[in-house]
């Protein structure tokens, strides 16, 4: 470990130190607010360490991590996302959990650590360990409201399925390793590019590893946990699972296949294309008539990652529009919208329950116009309506697909976008419809804190801003590509 390595690792080190400091603070005195503030401070400190890491030479840190511009871009994205998630979490826990609230932040920070580690991984070992740090933290976070059975049940389901999928991942890795003799991504991909067409064990290993990727991304057929877990988990945790956790694994997926042209490998192309197609269709069809907003978002996120996989398949081929760039833009846009949407679900909760049924949103416009406008903006963006970031993001994915000539996938994507509009607008329509007096009594009145309100406004503005002026973000994404 040299001084350079140390500077490079600074964001991660700060992130890892934050839970320790918080534990010390808890040892002195338990206080929810102090804990939350400390975690935000820690995340900001990690964020501010990024420029230092950026201008230090030597991307490779030992052989496990590679901290390049690409990784740092995802670092920043995930730090910011976690900061944004902490704010509604604080309000949510104050309202809905009466036990110890401080461990939540420890787990959230370790989960972020896992996700960040994924973005920087360059080796099977760091990949696997980061993935497990993320998963183990999430098991506990999903079941954090431990007196509630849906939470525990969701946590158990998530645990069993995640463990099975990481067992598949491990088995796949061992097959790959047995052939390659190295666990460095670079060596693996070199091996695959050269011998992939006749070394079936390695390809089978990669195919088994797809389970690990697919599970965390919740793409068909590894998606079935997501609606149950989204529903059972606290809304901020669902936001985290939908955004940061998926972002990390996606960053890794792109890095892993960065030098590999998927279109060239028939088995892998078929597998990923099938996953993308089924994810789009199954996700959208399941969301179509869903009346639970959290499940709806879960299903829709299945479809969204189907779209992203299209860009992923388009990949890194030499063209004007790299699939990776398109997907990264999509991820940023998706982070903003999904965190915002779950934030609103968290705000429309009371001590008894979360406002996740469609009927909880009926007439929201008349009760809380700003909240409904923000949620409509999120829905429009998810549906990909112009002047929102979602439109630009989808457009870029289409463009990357077109320049790689993935016509079938493109057509399916377009059909599915149309399907998506239907159920997103259903939520919007619900908010603007009238409520009769009888229903009024059962409705939850949202209590928006000042900070949450400001954050929500910022997210909404960011959404429109990216829809009108995407060039800035695209520039920084292009600068951050490997």
């Amino acid at each position: 470990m040299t001084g350079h390595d140390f500077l490079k690792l600074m964001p991660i080190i700060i992130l890892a130190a934050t839970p320790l400091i918080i534990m010390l603070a808890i040892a002195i005195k338990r206080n929810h607010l102090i804990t939350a503030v400390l975690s935000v401070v820690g995340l900001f400190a990690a964020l501010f360490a990024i420029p230092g890491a950026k201008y230090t030479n030597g991307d490779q840190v030992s052989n496990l991590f590679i901290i390049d511009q690409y990784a740092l871009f995802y670092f920043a994205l995930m730090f910011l996302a976690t900061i944004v998630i902490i704010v509604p979490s604080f309000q949510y826990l104050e309202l809905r959990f009466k036990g110890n609230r401080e461990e939540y932040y420890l787990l959230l920070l370790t989960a972020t650590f896992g996700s960040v580690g994924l973005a920087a991984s360059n080796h099977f070992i760091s990949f696997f360990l980061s993935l497990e740090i993320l998963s183990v933290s999430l098991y506990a976070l999903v079941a954090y409201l431990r007196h509630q059975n849906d939470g525990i049940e969701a946590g158990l389901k998530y645990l069993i399925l995640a463990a099975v999928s990481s067992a598949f991942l491990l088995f796949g890795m061992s097959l790959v390793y047995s052939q390659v003799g190295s666990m460095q991504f670079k060596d693996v991909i070199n091996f695959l590019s050269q011998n992939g067409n006749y070394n079936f064990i390695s390809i089978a290993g990669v195919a088994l590893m797809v389970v690990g990727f697919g599970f965390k991304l919740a793409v068909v057929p590894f998606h079935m946990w997501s609606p149950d877990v989204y529903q059972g988990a606290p809304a901020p945790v669902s936001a985290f699972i939908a955004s940061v956790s998926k972002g990390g694994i996606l960053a890794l997926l792109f890095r892993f296949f960065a030098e590999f042209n998927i279109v060239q490998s028939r088995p892998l192309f078929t597998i990923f294309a099938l996953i993308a197609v089924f994810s789009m269709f199954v996700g959208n069809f399941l969301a179509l008539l869903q009346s639970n907003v959290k499940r709806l978002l879960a299903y829709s996120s299945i479809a969204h990652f189907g779209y992203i996989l299209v860009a992923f398949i388009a990949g890194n081929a030499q063209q004007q529009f790299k699939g990776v760039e398109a997907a990264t833009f999509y991820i940023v846009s998706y982070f903003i919208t999904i965190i915002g949407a779950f934030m609103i679900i968290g705000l429309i909760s009371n001590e008894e329950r979360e406002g996740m049924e469609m009927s909880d949103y009926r007439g929201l416009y008349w009760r809380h116009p700003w909240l409904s406008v923000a949620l409509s903006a999120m829905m429009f963006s998810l549906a990909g309506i112009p002047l929102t970031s979602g439109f630009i993001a989808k457009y870029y994915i289409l463009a990357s697909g077109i320049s790689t000539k993935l016509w079938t996938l493109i057509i399916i994507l377009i059909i599915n976008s149309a399907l998506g509009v239907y159920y997103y607008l259903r939520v919007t329509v619900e908010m603007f419809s009238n409520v009769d007096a009888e229903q009024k009594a059962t409705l939850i009145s949202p209590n928006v804190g000042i900070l949450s309100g400001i954050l929500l406004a910022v997210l909404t503005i960011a959404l429109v801003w990216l829809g009108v002026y995407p060039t800035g973000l695209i520039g920084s994404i292009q600068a951050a590509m490997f």
Partner: protein
Amino acid sequence: MYDLLWLVPTFPFLGFLILAIFGKKIGKKLSAVVGVGSIGLSALITILIGIQFLTNPPEGHAFVQTLWTWIAADDFKVNIAFHLDALSMVFAFVVTFVGFWIHLYSTEYMADDEGFSRFFAYMNLFVGAMLMLVMGDNLLLLYLGWEGVGLCSYLLIGFWYRDPANGYAARKAFIVTRVGDAAMAVGLFMLFYSFKSLNIQEILSVAPHVWSPGNKLAVASTLLLLGGAVGKSAQLPLQVWLPDAMAGPTPTSALIHAATMVTAGVYLIARMNGIYLLAPLSMTAVAIVGAATLLVAGFAGMAQTDIKRVLAYSTVSQIGYMFLALGVGAWSAGVFHFMIHAFFKALLFLAAGAIILAQHHEQNMFKMGGLAKALPVTFWTFLIGSASLAALPLITAGFYSKDAIIWYAWSGPNGSIYLWMAAVFGAMVTAFYTFRMVFVTFFGEQKMEISHYPTWRVHIPLIALAFFALFGGFIELPGTLGHLTLFSDFMKSALPVVEGGHHEVSLEIFSQVLTAVLALVSIFVAYYLYLKNMQIVTNFTSTKFGHGLQQFLLSGLGFDWLYERLFIRPYVWLSRTNKRDFIDFFYVFLPWLARQFHYLFKYTQTGKVRRYVVGIVFGVLVSITIVVIL
């Protein structure tokens, strides 16, 4: 100075945002300051830029300000960029300058309305969208502005949404213009398909190399664009929405008729002049549409009783003149008439609004009368506006602008004697109904007491606009009368000059004198029929034929009736009989299929972990099988 160009559309949008978000909280006074101030600033910048444009024109007489790239992928590149040349300069000037007076006027007109800040928010958005339309550098921005204008007109026409009739009028405007928009969208796609670019200047410069004159695609796309223009500019056969659009507040009408919405079609055709020149057929179509519209609307104007409807038909008719000018190839004459028309039409609407306000919101002019003494400023300014509309010779701006069109209708590259005849006849009709309106409203005995005396906020816009309606014409004088070509010289850099045609000075003088005499004669006829001897009219309309004719003209030559029978009823009938029919089956089938898929997939979502594991294993099995097989 040019670098401030982006501020011109930004100010109205900013005003809209402020009013939309804080409108209710900041009160009427501040709302008015924001609403008027934003347009005022934008007008100020436009004028400053205009002065620089005149004194120190940019290279190539065009200035492009590229703010940023919105979307970029292969051919499809869209910049957020503004293009300033002589044409957009004139339009931007008219939109902001006239828009500013209308806004100022609105502060009084709308003072008692509860939706005060909402009104200004819409108006600001309207101006902003129009500015985007005229300044947009590419077709997508133009289209965005185009749709924005449509949306705002919908919101403003239906502003008093509690009355269902207003909502109906708003919907009618929206749907009718949509018909045109659909055609236009197809046209734009055609252009993109042919040129692989959305940049207007690029298309115009490339077009002659790609298309030979008379190319089928050129004709088709220009005709489709004409469809859009016809919808927005309320030309035949889509003119039916404009008279009904009177449902909105009067300042809205002024804005729609003078500065924004309806002139969008004129702008579109003038802007795309390069490709219209490649499609002679479309040019002829534009001219014929213009000529037919000016006559039809003129006739309809003769029988109206509602003061605002008279003005509405006059707008349709005057825009017809502009189309005629564009169609015969007198581009700058059309734009010149647009500018002058904006001045006097805004003036007339604002004055009419003042009258309506003074007459207990009565709009039927036959119930008014003798207002000349009670409302002197309004009377004189209205008179000036009417004179300009009627093209009273020599002293009004309207004479100079319309005279040029009439002459070019004959002598222009695509001109013909028939078009000229239609134009002359239209001028006569215009003079008649305009002064009929003046005599009925302002002369005779006063029938109602005055309910509201206008203040400076009404008078200043009226006087300012009256000044331009009177003297604005002196910047472009015909060859026979001083030959001043300031305006056409200015436009030369953006629009093609009138070429060819026959220039016989004697014919031109003949045309001018004839037009002038006919206008004077019809004013006299109007004076005789509606002031001196009303009995003749009453007698005539009491005969069966007279009554029928009156009703026919009153209904705008029965176009609404015709469309009702031609489109609406068959459509309703079709949709009724088709309720359970084959066509519906297709539309019902898709959602049904989607729903079945939903239930099918939902079945997999059992909530049982073991099943989920089976799902995962199934996925693995498929993957591995693929590896084994492939």
